[in-house]
Structure formats: structure tokens, C-alpha cells
């Protein structure tokens, strides 16, 4: 896999690329153009439901949705999961979010979200992560390989498609954008882009989002 789309991320001041995706609630497709001239949009581009922290983020966006709406901002999310899978999941977790399904990550590419090249070096570093930050252990431990795992695999079987989805997306970064009613990006938050400065960077905090909303010109 290589970084075959060198487009830089969409920056504040630039027009937000339009997209239309199947909705996970099975109703009308989700299209950015629907909001043009009506209301600003808070857009979250996430990855698959296989990431528990993304699932958590979706839940959080759900709880935030009402507060943003009160400020006149609509919330739209994109998950990189097959529409049928997403529909099953959200049948049990009804959400007020408008969610589009985009397993091919076309939206992410459209918005120029980086996907670091997976080089041998990257993988080596990833796999060799040894842990001992707090000095609890006599020596750093590798990520545990659980020996009893195979014995407990009743009913669980990895498939090629599953691995495929994961591998296609890995290591896709996530991003959040605030788009004004004219379709211009006014604020962007790209995962990892601030690493080394604050350390906090995977998802924007509620306060950050609200501050960005309040700063929208002509809201």
C-alpha cells in the first residue's frame, strides 16, 4: 500500500468537496449538498466500526448533536463500514446522527486525509512496540500473544473480506471539519497533525468544537 493520493488535506477557507453516500439508517442518501445554503455542518470522517474508539466517538458525536443543533449546526458522520453491517449495528444503537457508509474511503481521500505509507519500517515499529512506561515490569513486554486464544475461538473465524477491509483502511487517519452554510471549510482537525505539540489529537474535544462553532463567521 502506498500513499497514492498526495492531495493535501482540505484547509480552512477552501470549499468543502461534495459527496453522496448511502445512509446507515437505510433512508435517504447522505449528501453534503443538502445543507448548502441552509445550515453549517460538523462533519466527522471516521473509520470502520472495528475500531472501538471510533464507536465511542460516534456515541459522543451523538450526545453532542443536540448541543450543536441548538447552535444551528447539523452533524454528519461517515463510517468506513459496509452499509449492511452498519445498518445492523445501528439497529441496536439508534443514533440521531446522520451517518453515511463509505467502506472505500472515497470521502477521506476527497478531503485529503493522510494515510501514511505502510513501509516495512512502519510495520516493524508497530509490531515491536514494547511496553514498560511505568517501570512495573522487570523488562518491557511485547504486546501479549495469548496462547489460549486458539482454544477459545468457538464460533469466531476471521475471513478474507474482514482482513481486507481492515487492511484497506489501515492506517487511515481520521478528521473533523466544520463547514459553513456556503460550503466553505472554516475549521479542521486532522488526527496526528498536532502530535508532538499537545499530545491530544485523535478526536477534538467538545469544547474545541463548540469554540469553533462560536467562531463561525455569520453563523
Amino acid at each position: 500500500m502506498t500513499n497514492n493520493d498526495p492531495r493535501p488535506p482540505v484547509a480552512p477557507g477552501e470549499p468543502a468537496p461534495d459527496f453522496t453516500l448511502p445512509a446507515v439508517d437505510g433512508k435517504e442518501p447522505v449528501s453534503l449538498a443538502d445543507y448548502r445554503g441552509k445550515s453549517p455542518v460538523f462533519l466527522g470522517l471516521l473509520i470502520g466500526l472495528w475500531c472501538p474508539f471510533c464507536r465511542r466517538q460516534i456515541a459522543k458525536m451523538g450526545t453532542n448533536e443536540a448541543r450543536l443543533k441548538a447552535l444551528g449546526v447539523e452533524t454528519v458522520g461517515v463510517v468506513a463500514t459496509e452499509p449492511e453491517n452498519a445498518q445492523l449495528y445501528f439497529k441496536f444503537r439508534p443514533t440521531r446522527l446522520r451517518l453515511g457508509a463509505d467502506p472505500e474511503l472515497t470521502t477521506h481521500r476527497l478531503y485529503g486525509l493522510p494515510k501514511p505509507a505502510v513501509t516495512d519500517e512502519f510495520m516493524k515499529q508497530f509490531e515491536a512496540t514494547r511496553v514498560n512506561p511505568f517501570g512495573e515490569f522487570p523488562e518491557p513486554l511485547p504486546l501479549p500473544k495469548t496462547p489460549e486464544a486458539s482454544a477459545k475461538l468457538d464460533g469466531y473465524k476471521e475471513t478474507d473480506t474482514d482482513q481486507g477491509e481492515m487492511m484497506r483502511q489501515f492506517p487511515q487517519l481520521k478528521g473533523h471539519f466544520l463547514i459553513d452554510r456556503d460550503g466553505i471549510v472554516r475549521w479542521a482537525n486532522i488526527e496526528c497533525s498536532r502530535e508532538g505539540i499537545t499530545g491530544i489529537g485523535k478526536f477534538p474535544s467538545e469544547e474545541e468544537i463548540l469554540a469553533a462553532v462560536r467562531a463561525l463567521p455569520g453563523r
Partner: protein
Amino acid sequence: MITCPGCDTEAAPGFAFCPRCGRRLPSPCDACGFPREPDFAFCPRCGAARSPNTPVRPAQPQKPADPSHEADRRPVTVLFADLSGFTTLSERLDPEDVRSFQNALFETLSAAIARYDGFVEKFVGDAVLAVFGAPVAHEDDPARACAAALEMLERGATLSRQWAARLGQPVTLHVGIHTGPVVAGSLGGASGAGAAYAVTGDTVNTTARLLASAAPGTILVSEATCALAQHRFAFESAGQVTLRGKAEPIAVRRLVGVLAEPGSARGLAGLGLAAPFVGRKDELDQLLAAFERMECGQAQVVSLVGEAGTGKSRLIAEFLARLDADGRLARIALRRAACASLGEPTYGVFGSLFRGAYQVEPKDSLEVARQKLVSGLRALGARDDEAAMIAPVLSYVLGVEEAMHPDVEPEQLRRQIALAARALIERRLDKEPLLILVEDLHWADTASVDLLRQVVDQLASRPLLVLLSHRPETRPPLVTRAAQSVIRLTPLSRDQTRELVAGLFAAPVGGRLEQLQDFVATRAGGNPFFVEEVVRSLVDKGVLSRQGDRWTCAEASEALDVPATLQGLMLSRVDRLPADARRLLQESAVLGPVFEEALLRTVATTPAAFDKALDPLVESDLIQAAGQLHERGRYRFTHALVHEVVYQNLLLARRTELHERVGRALERAAGPHPERLSDLEALGHHWSLSADRPRGARYLVAAGDWARGVYANDDAIRHYQRALQTLAGSAGGEADARAARERLADLLGLTGRRTEALTHYETLREQLAADHAAAARMLRKIGALHWDAGDRDRAAVCFTDGLRHLGDGGDPIERAHLFQEMGRLAFRAGDNAAAIGWAERALAEATQENDAATEPERLREAAIMRIQAYNTLGVALARTGRLTEAVEQIERSIGLAEERELLQAACRGYTNLGVLYSSLDPRRSIETCLRGLETAKKVGDLGFQSRLYANLAVAYCALTDRCEAEGVEAAQAAIDLDRRLGLLDHLAVPLIVLGQIHQCNGEHTQAFAMYQEALGLAEQVGEPQLLFPCYDGLATLYLDTGNRRLAETYLAKAQGVCERAGVEPDSLMVLPFLY
């Protein structure tokens, strides 16, 4: 009869020590009968030399023992001997004959005992009981006893031959020898008439039983003695013997003779360890410089001075090895003599020097020996008349001939010997330079030392190097014309000692080298011999063990005994002290390894003699000033081992009395309310060893409280445990013991030692059944421990029981505690409404108490309860979606905890607040977790450390890009802690977190395994906030693999959990783990 110069007791001839006071007795001159002081080589009246058969004692005079020798405890070697078949003999013979035979036997046996400086404790009928090591210890008492026993058999055989005709049968001795602890001292009134110095203890009984098992003509020796004498004597196994009155049979050995080539009592070669040569470079250079000056034709006398074990022999060996390597050793003649601790006969040193020079063997016949001498003298170029003069003198010195011609006057003999010695050495020097090496000069006979001095001075301009090694108590022999130098071997520095320990082990010592180095260095105090013996005792005790080439070291314990090989050596130094000084040393030992002069002065038995008594202790290097140079007032025992030996030397009764005396002095100094930890510890230590043990326990508990107050949990546990031990079985201390036990259990629970804590609480519950409030408190604490172990049902039963014990009008604090626990239980079971109810009841009770109470302890307790209740309220509110109120409650909880400095109670607040902030303010979320973690570490609460690690992992993964590094590590840290502590109640949490990380990274198989294990635990606990993420995780895993059927099943289960608990799935997603 001989009159004891110490107490005027009349002692029978042949006694080496006074039977009453233990002082060494003078012995009559062989020529004129004048009672000669034991150390005199010549009779002061007639000048006759002491016969070679009765050795001169070590050159250093033994200071007389105190006439009213106080009883003490000490290790000794006991020797029991008697005749086989004496009873039938006395039945058959006339009592007068029996009596005169008894006298002869007594004289024979006493002579053998006296020769080796033993003490005849008792002589009954045909049996003798002798003690080696009391009243005065030697470093080799077991060996002395063995030597005496062999000599007794030999002399006994001669006696039997002499008496065979009159007795009508041969008589045979048998002997038993054993080494062990005894109490030694005057029995029958301290110094009154009839008082006799005696030893008491099971060691004596065991020896008597060994004697009973010894066949006629044999010497049975216990393993204990054998282990300490086998470097010099030959033993053979005599199997196992069941001794009367002893449960277990013991292994015994038969002493069969002296080893032809005695080994060294020292060194660790037997263990395959070789000590490196550490330090001593300057000293070696000084020796080499003296050698060079000698080669230039100036006679040198060099004394190597150092305590036993400081490395004198090793330095000499290195010196010789260096000369050999340079080829210089081959160009000179080397004569060496090693003085034996058993004493050297007159001119013994010269005897062994010349014996070596002419290869005269002890077994040579008179004729052969003479032949060797004459040819040796010729080879040296002696003229015939010279040889004729020297040969008879030499024969005498070498013990080849029994005595000189009786016509030779003693003074004339002395002159002849001097002349002969000088002539021999001079002849040798004509041929080549000469190095005379005399080791352990402190044991040499005075005649030899005088002669050596004389000869060196006469040969001052010849290439002669006399190298002497001796201990500090012997002064270097002064010469006037030859060059003299003294090299003092000081103890190794701590670093050098550590280097020595490291050097012993060629292979690394299973990770604990540092600890081993510290342990050995502390005990051995820079003495290489002590280092080796401490290492040896660690091997014997199994602390150090060897597998192939690798040594491993278990935890070294301070409680190890002093190595038996060192006890006699160190005690002998103590026994040499004057009585006042010895007593003061014992009093110092009660104070501890380091002590204040002022305190010692207040507890000293004879304050008037204090200064006079202190100086010898410093001079003899037993104690030294501690702290800064020139700063008087603080001393320490030079070696920790010396301190232990002196302390163990004290009678238990005397220790008890002295500890009380110290306790009182400390109380006077510290005032009625001591506050310093060091004061409390010292008071606790001394009183707990006095007769008033409850008082000691109270101080120990106070010390424990102090330590607990600064979260020094291990120290606090130690103090409480010691308080409990001190109170065990002492009447009147029950209430104190209960208080100590409860505090101990609290800390044990806190530090993860749950089983021990439970045992203590259960004991207390039985003891406190009548006290409702106390019983309820125990139930609450027991319940909390069960909960930690994942057993909520049992926990709930305990809490409900506790509330029932209390009733409605019970202690508000205790009721608040139990309401609070019930609330926490309800929250964790997913019943948030009930949790809020319980927390409000707890809060009401605690607030009421807070307003009513005045005692600080009650106020503190009330504050803790409020802190806890705010917390429970907070988490229950958070779960029901009232996030802002929740944060408010928990911030209030932390605020109160910080205000009252109740750090442990604050941990829970930090744990929960970290989770709540993760939505509101991610940066503060991580900060709060880290702050909580720091607090939990400071407090030593491992349970909250684990919870905080888990929450920290969630925060890293959910909020930052540092999931792989910090997130995984924190989760793993929590898993490790939970597994180690058996916190099954919590283990599911970090497993879930790690599962989520794996899932996020696409490591599906591992994620699956984590969720499965967590689910097993969560289902036992039945807690919604644990069940939900397991189901959710498994559902999404199945979703990803396209198994929609199972995905749906698990999604339904997750939904079921939420419905039953009445919580929103989103709440469990966003605020995962609250406590």
C-alpha cells in the same frame, strides 16, 4: 596446692584455671617448684626454662578474668571422658587403691586439658568434664578439645600400662565431644564459699550421651564439633546414634587422629570460590621495597599487623608469588614458620625454622636426625668444632633429644642456643640472602621472639629480611640496629568489600548481586575473612545456592546467625578485656550496633569507671567513633558480627533488665510525648525486650501509626507485626493487641495481602463479638475484601450483617460506612437509583457526625465518609446522564480529601473524574489520571493504581494518538497488578481495554481472546459496565468477519444489559469504567 592470685582459692596441682573464679593459675617451676606466672618462659627464681611439654601461652598475656565472673551465654566445646568399667574396678579394689589411681588419672587428664587451655569443670569418680571456650574463648576451641582428647587417650594408655599390675586389668578411656551454647558462670552464690565456675545447658547433656555411646578407646564427636575441626583432624563416620532423651537420631563421627597435612580453616576453595586480591597495593609495594633494601645488605624486620582475617596471609602469599614471578625468590633462601594457636613450646619458632632447613621429620630416629643435622651443618661450611657445639643445642631445640645434659646451667643453655642460632643463620647468609617468615607471631613463645630480635640486631648489615605477621594486641618486637617497619592492614573500604564479594562469583548471581554485596559488606565490615565466612554461612543456610556454574541468591535475611567459625574468634577478643570494659561493651550491645555515648553513660552499671572502661573498647578496635572525624559522642561496633556476638553473650535476664534501663533513660530524654519516629522506634524496641512488654508494644504501634501517616507502609506493617508478637501471650495487653492487629490488617489489605488481612479480621471478629460497633466494622472490612476478590454476594451479606449488628441507633460513622458500601455495591450492580439513595443516607450520617463530633479521629472519619459518599453519588449521577452534577459531586469529594490531606480517599475521586473529564476536557482527563496514579503510588494503594492505569489506557486510546505506546503499556500494567493481587473484581477492565486496542489494530484473534476472558469474569461479577463492552466488542468482531447472526446475538445481549440496568448504551460507551 596452688593459690589462685585472683580469689585465694586453693586449687589442686595440675589445674590450669581456678575452679572458683576461672582465672588462669600459675604453674610450679619444674626445677624448683616456684609458682610461676603462666606466661613466663623462665622461672623468675631459678631461671629454669619451662619444659617443652608445657607450652608457653601466647605472648600476649591474658588479662585475668573478673573474680566475680558474671554468668553469660556462649558457645563452647564440651569434652566428657571417663573409664570404661570403672564401677567393677572399684567394687573389686580396696578404696585406698582406687583413690590413689583416681589421683593419678586426674593428674593425667588435667594435664592434657591444661595443655590446650581447657577448663576442668568437674571431676567425679573416674569422669572428667572439661570445657573449651569458657571462661575464656579461643578462636579454635573445637580443635583444642579434639587435640586434648587424643592426648588423653595416649596418656591414658600409658597410665593403664603403669597401673596394670595393681589394677589387675587394663583400663581404657572413652570420650564424647560436642559444641553448642551454654550458660557459664559461678554457681552457688556469686563469689561466696562453695561457689564454682560451671557451665549449664543441653550441650552438656548431649556430650554426656555421646560419651555413653562411645566404645572403649574411642572419641565420639558431634557433627557440630567436627565441622569446626575437620581442617586439622581426621574423622570417620560412626553412623547415627539415638541419644537418650533426644527424639531424632544424630549423625556422629569418630575422631581418629591428626591430619598429616592440616588444611586451612579459611578460604572458600571447597565451594569452588576463589577470592580475588582486593586493595593492598600500597602494602605490597612496601614489602617489595623492604625486600630491595634487604638485597642491598641491610637487615629488615617488617611486621604485618592486622586483626584476624584482615588478609595478612594473603598479602604474604601475593608477595611471595610476585618474587617468584620475578625470579627473585630463586636467588634467596626462604625459611618459614607458622605459630600454632595451641601454643608453641619454648624456642618453638626456631625449632620449626630449623626443622624445615634440615628436613628433620618428627618420625626420624635420634640417629637419623643427628645425621641430618651434622651433614646440614657441614654443607653450610661449619667447622667440626662449631658443628660439635651446635648439634646438641639444635637437637634440644628441635626436640630431637629430650633434654640437655643436666649439668648445663639454664643461663648457659640460653647463651648456647643464641650462639647456635646466630651461627646457623650467618652461615646461610654467607651463601645467599635469607627471608625468614614467621606467621602468627602472637602465638609464638617469648623465648623465640627474644632470640629473633637478638639475632637480627647482630646481623644488621646482612641481607636478611624477617617478615612477621601478627595481630595488633602483640607489639612488633623492637630491634635497635636492624631497619624496622610496620605495615598495618586496615579494613577494606565498603567499595573494596563489595568488589571482593563480586569477585568471588565468577558467574553472575541471579540478579541479586547488589543486594548480596550490601548484605555481606554490612555484616563483615571490611574484613575479608569475615566476608568469606558470611558467604559460607549463606551457602550453608541455602540462601546462596549453586546450579552448575551459576550461583543464585535468595532473599538474604538479617536474622542469620553469626557464623560458628567466627564466634570463638570474636568472643576471645571480648574475653581479653578487663571486667569493667567487658561489662560496658555488653551494655553497648544492648543499645544497638550504633549508640550514643551519653545514653550509654546513663545506663552504665558503674558510671564512675565509664571513661576508664570505654578507652580499651576503642583501643581494641571493638568499637569506633561513628560519624565525623573528631566528633565524640557516637560510636559503632566495628563489625555488626561483633555486636551480635556480644549481645548473644548476655544472659537473657540481664538483657531484659538492661533493655528496661535503656527504655527508662530514653523516656527521660524524649519526654512524656515522644514524637520523633526514631524515638518511638527505639522506645518500642527496648521496652518490647524488657519485662514490660505491653509498654513496648504501645510504642511500636505509635511508631507504626507514624510510618503509616507518611505512607511508609512496609515500615508500618513491620512495627505492627512486632507489636503483635511482643504482646503474644502477655496478660493485660489484649486491647493493645487488637488495635495493632486491626491496623496491621488494614495495611495488609491495602497492599494486596488479602488472605493475611482476612485472617486477622476474622480473629478480631471473634474477639470482638460482644462489641456491636466493632463487630460491624470488622464485617464491613471483611466484606470489602470479599468484594475485591469478586465475591459480591458475600460482600453484601457482610454489609447487611453489619447494619443489623448496629441497629438504628448505632454508631453514625459505622452506619455511614456501611451505607456507603451498600451504595457502592448498588452502583456496581447497575442499580443507580438505589446507589444514590444509599449514598445520601451515608452523607446524612456523616454530616451529622461532622457537626456533632469534637475528637479529631471522629472528625477525620466523618470526612472520609463524606468524601466517599460524594463519590458514589457522583458516579451514579453520571451513569444516569447527569454529567454536570456528577462532576460537581466528585470535584467536591476530591476537594475535601485534599483539604484534609486524606490522599487514599482522594484516589477514588481521581479515578472517576478522569473518566468524566474525557468528554468534557480530554487534556484534564489524562492529567487527572496521572495525578491520581501518583497519589495512589504515594499511598501505596495497589488496587487504585490498577484502576487508574486502566482508565489512563482508555484516555490515551480514546483521546490521543498514543494508543500503541502508552495505552497498551497502561493496560498491561493494570492487568499485571490485578493478576498479581488477585483483584478479580477489576481484572475484566484492563482485559477489555487491551481487547479494544487489539481490535482497533486489527489483531482480531487477540482481541477475541481478551474479550472472552473478560466476559468470563464479567459474567461472574454481573456488572453492566463490564458486560456491555464485552458483548459490544464481540458483536463488532463478528460483524467484521461477516458473521451477522452472532453479531446480532451479541448486540442483543448488550442491549439487554442496558435495558435491565436502565442505562443508555451511549453512557456506557462514553464513560466506560466508574467506581
